[in-house]
């Protein structure tokens, strides 16, 4: 028998399969996104209930801009609705909201909503809900490297001085611990440019379900699977 490890502190989720969920019911992809937002609400609630400390949701990647404009617009609309609808209950549930990703291309009104909710929930001490918007793991690292270069140009950072912890300061997730468990739904087995630096030792869980079908029970299954794994971080167990 392997010894059970405690609940994951930080769960990250790639919410994939909305479009395919809709297609398998002859519905337009946008309906899948709306259902997906609902799932995001229930899973967030479940995580709060289970006292997970950090939950990161991959809502929009930098590559998602390549989708048809109508779909992208609707996706932002639903995200905006989600934030507006949920903000009050998030704050009441003592949740801290954080955004990671490149702020530049995100529609201004959504950025505004996020900033407001993030500001209002800054002092909360419960779960931290991290939403990845316009996020890309590679650009995150490249941005961090560029910052290092400019620091070094200003002689604030010397060659050989930078270590892993030092580098983390430049990432979007500076004050967020690495995810313990990464869940990807929708029957795809890839990382897709999500938290590349942070996922070095993350346990991966792939669910065949499309995201709108992902339920509380599936989340618990994922956590159970995580609990039964031996995390060695490159050393030997025992």
């Amino acid at each position, binding site marked *: 028998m392997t010894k059970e490890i405690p609940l994951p502190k930080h769960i990250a989720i790639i919410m994939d399969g909305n479009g395919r969920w809709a297609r398998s*019911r*002859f519905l*337009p992809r946008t309906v899948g996104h709306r259902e997906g937002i609902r799932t995001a609400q229930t899973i967030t609630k479940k995580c709060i209930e289970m006292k997970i400390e950090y939950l990161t949701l991959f809502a929009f990647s930098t590559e998602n801009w390549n989708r048809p404009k109508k779909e992208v617009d609707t996706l932002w609309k639903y995200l905006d609705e989600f934030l507006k609808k949920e903000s009050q209950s998030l704050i009441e549930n003592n949740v801290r909201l954080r955004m990671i990703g490149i702020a530049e291309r995100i529609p201004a009104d959504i950025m505004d909503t996020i900033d407001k909710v993030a500001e209002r929930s800054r002092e909360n001490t419960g779960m931290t809900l991290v939403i990845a918007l316009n996020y890309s793991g590679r650009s995150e690292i490249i941005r961090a490297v560029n910052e290092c270069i400019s620091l070094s140009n200003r002689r604030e950072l010397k060659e050989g001085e930078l270590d892993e912890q030092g580098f983390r300061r430049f990432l979007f997730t500076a004050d967020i611990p690495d995810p313990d468990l990464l869940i990807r739904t929708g029957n795809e087995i890839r990382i897709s440019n999500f938290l590349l630096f942070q996922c070095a030792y993350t346990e991966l869980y792939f669910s065949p379900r499309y995201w*709108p079908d992902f*339920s509380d029970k599936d989340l618990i299954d994922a956590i159970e699977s995580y609990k039964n794994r031996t995390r060695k971080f490159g050393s030997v167990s025992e």
Partner: protein
Amino acid sequence: MLRHRLIIAGVGVPLLIFLCMLNNPVYIVVLFTLFGMIGLWEFYVLLRKNKIFIYVYILGAFTLFLGLLPVFTGLRADLPLFLTASSIGVFIILCAGLFLYPPTDQKTGKPSMKGMLDTVFSVYVFIFFCVLYTLMIQLRAWDDHGGRYLLLVFFSVMAGDSGAYFAGRYLGRHLLMPKISPKKTWEGVLGNFCGNIIGITLYYIFIYRGFSYTHLLMISLLLGFIAIFSDLFVSYIKRSTGVKDSGVVFPGHGGVLDRTDSLLFTNLAVLIIVHYMQYSGIL
């Protein structure tokens, strides 16, 4: 007859509600597929009496596959796959006649409709029964509320049936379509709608409030219409084939066909309603 109805209602309804409310759809998938196979067999026996032999093995294989389809798709609905499999089924049935019957009579050499007739009826039974029936399983696998959508079908049909039965029995005077069904009356039609409304109210109170009550009322009227037409449609088949009781497995109880006939179109209607309500964001 009344006692039978009450016994069926007393045992069947709670069992059905229990099965539909189970979180895992697999029980319904397996059980309904099994009943579908029985229903298909009843159709076969019914038509055999009229010297029409539908391709029961091909139809059975496709009913089995279409019914168990959710098992292969992660217990979720997959309409594109369902449609593909159904179309392939129709194609294979159409082609089967080529190999089973020669187009001319072997002795006289004259043209023979024998193969055509079997093929036409096979396609008919396949679309009307096998495909529409297994579509109930797709509705169950639609999403987390699939069982509740399915219960909407059952509540509406069963309450409508009971309403029609009692109103027709105690108040029935004016015949609806005596040539097709000698017992159906206009009073029964009204009773059907009243029963429908009662059923839908019970559904709203005890089962599921995902639909608003106003929507449910409109849906129940629509389902009432559809149920009446599908009832008449099945009576029409029975009249023209000269069979009264289609039950083979449970003689006297009317069999699977009698229990499911008015469900088939109603289920299709609910599936389309759920689809469009999700499409427009109401549900």
